[in-house]
């Protein structure tokens, strides 16, 4: 293969700016990224799963993570689950602003569904990251 042919093959299509906007919207409001690329079914299905997991996690008495709980090096241990929770976008931000779902009191931790709720809250965020990447790829024309 001559050099000019190789350069032509290796050229990568630039990502359109709108795709980044779709990605940010998909993170911020679960399901909205697919709505922006007019994939109604996927928006309802994938966004619906994220919303469902988040609210069932809260209903089970789950706990979300931020940096305020740990002290010293244990604050660093809060970072990975906080990143997972943060995937829920505006749902996490609103709860953080009103201080709902972050309480770590013994009465809440004693609930039988406390650990399940925490897991569902983490999963809601992680699944929304996947949903966001799917919407971004669609907006960038990488898959349909």
């Amino acid at each position, binding site marked *: 293969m001559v050099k000019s042919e190789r350069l032509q093959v290796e050229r990568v299509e630039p990502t359109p700016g709108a795709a980044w906007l779709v990605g940010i919207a998909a993170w911020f409001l679960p399901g909205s990224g697919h709505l922006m690329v007019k994939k109604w079914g*996927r928006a309802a*299905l*994938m966004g619906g*799963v994220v919303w*469902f*997991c988040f609210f*069932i996690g809260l209903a089970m008495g789950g706990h979300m993570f931020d940096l305020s709980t740990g002290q010293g090096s244990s604050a660093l241990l809060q970072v990975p689950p906080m990143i997972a929770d943060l995937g829920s976008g505006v749902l996490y931000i609103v709860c953080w602003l009103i201080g709902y779902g972050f309480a770590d009191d013994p009465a809440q931790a004693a609930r*039988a*569904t406390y650990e*399940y709720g925490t*897991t*569902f809250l983490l*999963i809601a965020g992680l*699944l929304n990251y*996947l*949903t966001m990447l*799917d919407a971004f790829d669609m907006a960038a024309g990488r898959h349909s």
Partner: protein
Amino acid sequence: MRHFLVMCLFAAMASVVFGAMAKDTPRERWLYGLKVFAQFIVIGLALAWLLYFIPW
């Protein structure tokens, strides 16, 4: 029983997203989603039995 139902709910939610993202045709997506769901359940039960015998 409640533990198993919650695990099934978790598996269903995760497999819906995995199934919707992967593959090309609706049939392939259904099959992949069901496969992921079954894997979550089977591996979850296997781990539960494994941990049952570990005296922590």
